[in-house]
């Protein structure tokens, strides 16, 4: 589709979103550096990105260009050194930890290259994990919803299995079900197909674009140009900058 992407608001980008809509997620001039063994690495050198509601953005770039770091900042898993980050106009750089926890719980969903399921919980229980935050027991309705999500990712009959009894693709699909279960507003995915073979990767990608079509905003990091082309807009990164 449109492979020409810049940091500026992209007029041709929004397929599901109208142009005049305020961005759901807005990052301006974000920097982040790491210090390892005394030598500092500037992973992000001032990147900006706006995600419109319902938009599907891909981030591509060479290894080490700062994609994962940027996605972590966007998904609140990592605090930037400087720059601005707002979600629906709400400033995330100054938000309290409790607010961030709430956001992660309600609005944000993250999936990774590796599934990161809890090995001692069944697929269904892993899907229900977002509801197990407190002492309040999981409700019948929530269980029902988790089953629906598992069904959606094609694992209706495997809810009782432990992650170790599932294939890599199935595990990733459980992770997607877990992201779906809580009705998030925006899904972050860091190389969700990275550890899967191409056939399995395709089914996962199909799932993601379906989810996107249902109205979820998606920000995905990928190495795969073909998968990137499924998105509304592709952002290219190189050496800590959007190019």
């Amino acid at each position, binding site marked *: 589709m449109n492979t020409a992407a810049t940091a500026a608001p992209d007029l041709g980008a929004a397929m599901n979103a109208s142009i005049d809509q305020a961005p759901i997620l807005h990052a301006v001039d974000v920097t982040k550096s790491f210090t390892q063994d005394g030598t500092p690495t500037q992973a992000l050198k001032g990147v900006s990105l706006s995600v419109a509601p319902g938009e599907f953005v891909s981030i591509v770039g060479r290894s080490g260009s700062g994609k994962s770091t940027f996605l972590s900042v966007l998904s609140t898993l990592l605090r930037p050194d400087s720059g601005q980050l707002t979600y629906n106009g709400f400033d995330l750089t100054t938000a309290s930890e409790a607010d961030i926890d709430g956001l992660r719980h309600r609005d944000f969903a993250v999936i990774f290259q590796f599934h990161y399921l809890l090995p001692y*919980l069944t697929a269904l229980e892993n899907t229900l*994990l977002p509801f197990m935050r407190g002492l309040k027991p999981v409700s019948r309705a929530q269980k029902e919803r988790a089953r629906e999500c598992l069904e959606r990712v094609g694992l209706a009959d495997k809810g009782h299995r432990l992650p170790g009894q599932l294939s890599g693709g199935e595990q990733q699909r459980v992770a997607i079900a877990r992201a779906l279960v809580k009705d998030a507003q925006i899904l972050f995915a860091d190389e969700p197909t990275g550890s899967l073979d191409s056939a399995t990767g395709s089914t996962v990608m199909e799932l993601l674009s379906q989810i996107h079509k249902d109205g979820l905003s998606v920000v995905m990091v990928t190495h795969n140009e073909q998968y990137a082309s499924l998105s509304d807009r592709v952002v290219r990164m190189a050496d800590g900058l959007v190019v």
Partner: protein
Amino acid sequence: MNILTIALRNSRKKWVRTLLLLLVFTLGVVSIVSLNFVSRVVGEGLEKKLVSFGANILVSPISEKLTVSYGGFALGDMLFDVNYLDERDTIARIDAIALRKNISVIAPKLVVMDRVQGMAVAIVGVRFAQEKQLKSYWDVAQGALPGEEPAPAKKAGGGMHAASTPASAHTPPPTPAPTPAPIPAETSPTGLAQAAMAPLGLPKDTYSGNGVLVGSAAAAKLNLKLGDKVPLGKTHMLVTGILAPTGSEDDNVLLADLTFVQNAVGRTGKANFLEVAALCSGCPIEDIVNQLGAALPNVEIKTLRNIVEQRMYSVHFVKRLILSVSLVILLTGCSMVGISMLSAVNERKKEIGILRSLGFSRRAVFSIFFAEAASIGLLAGVVGYLAGFAVSFRILQVLELSEGATLSFEPLHLLATAVILALLTSLASLVPAWKAAAIEPSEALVTL
């Protein structure tokens, strides 16, 4: 399913580790609990003795040879070298001391060594009314105290033998009642003394029959049953009651009426020693002893309390020793929990990152680890308490230590043990849980 499910499922997955930790803590709890039980029961037994001795004072003639003893009283060589107290005179003198109001019971005793079925046994002449007051822990297993009707439930055979008193005409004895001639109808020597004590509420001792109360061990050794005849001097006694085990020297002797024994052995009005019980705990025992000493020159006056207190001290010492060992076990368990949790936190970094990315707060992550440790402690507390109860039951049975006291199961203590253990293990998990809560989701999750 809630946040605790996560902790419990992980404990179940790592069942070997969980079991090991449980074992260590359970061991610690078992040893502490059973120690507590055993020492409490033993201590209670001793305490009971202490109480039953009360501020007991032993009034005895000075005797040189110390060979046989009963009730802490040295009998000397029974056949040749026994000094006697005059029962009437001694009681009268005790009755006259200034602190008389603090004295509840005066129990004179005459001890006679005799052979029953070829075995040497001590026959102790007592005033049953006083003795019963002194030994509230007495429990008559069969029959009744001489001079008393047996409890209706234990009627079998006892009824006719307690009947030395002429009142029991409803049970005619099969053989003519062996009411022997030597029993004088008058109760003269003590009668006077008791008349003097009567205002203080002392029961009048009117019994002077030939009934004998047999200690449990003596009954077993001599194979004595209710209704058996036991010879004494030219006459004989009739078994009317058998004592339940008391843990005291009473188990090994035969107890008969003092007047009867005095007459049977020709020592009318004599006693070997007198036990004096003070009314109160913490009463001026020293003063009483001093006043008795003044009233009774050339008579030995000892307190029994010292002996028991010494035994209590050794019980406390053993208790402290085992307690410190148990504490070491628990401490070891705590460091095991700490260490294993610490390595678990590193192992589970990614899990923690996932939970945080799903909106679990630091506090929630903390409580998962905390709950895991606490549940181990809780379970160990419950299992350990129950096992400790069983173990102490067995210990007391094997060592025959109970001294009449009994174990009682207390749910509140079970609860307290479980809670304390849970607190202990959660305390041990404090640092690991805090470390887990400090993990940032990005450092745990993002693959470079």
